């Protein structure tokens, strides 16, 4: 079964953009939330989502199935995606 892949990012962060490029190149389906572009009234809810995954609020926060990766750690991401 295909893993759900989700990225919490900042639109102008190069680490986040590297993550997005890697996921695009890998061909996996993924969702991206650029938190800096989320409407103000929704930011708290998004940050609470991140908080349930990791205590750190850092970007990118990447969810691959049940695995959570904080930061652009290419090898770890590839391994989690089974590439």
């Amino acid at each position: 079964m295909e893993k759900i892949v989700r990225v919490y990012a900042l639109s102008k962060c190069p680490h986040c953009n590297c993550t997005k490029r890697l996921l695009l190149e890998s061909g996996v389906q993924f969702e991206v939330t650029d938190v800096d572009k989320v409407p103000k009234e929704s930011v708290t809810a998004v940050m609470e989502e991140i908080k349930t995954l990791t205590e750190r609020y850092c970007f990118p926060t990447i969810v691959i199935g049940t695995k959570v990766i904080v930061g652009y750690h290419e090898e770890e991401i590839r391994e989690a995606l089974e590439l």
Partner: protein
Amino acid sequence: MTEVETLYEMLRKIQEPKGFFFNQDKPKVFELLEGLIVNKERYGYMCCPCRLSANDRENDKDIICPCVYREPDVREYGSCYCNLYVSKEWNEGTTAREYVPERRPLEKLRF
């Protein structure tokens, strides 16, 4: 020169004498400088593109570029958090390139 190139030259002249060098990965540096310019337009100040801005200059003064965490991060890891400013040794590859962890205390984050 583009706005990014102008900012690059201006900051390079100011920061290199202080011992802070731009990452030799120029596309990455330009991406970060563009992020700083966008954040200046959005928030009125050059908030680090790799951190969420509170849109509050007073709250975010520690993460206005160059951030207050740059000096200890470059000293310990050879690079600032977003890899914009690095040490000479980091560029030369004579220091290990670790992923720089966030040093900013969690309690400073506002959203």
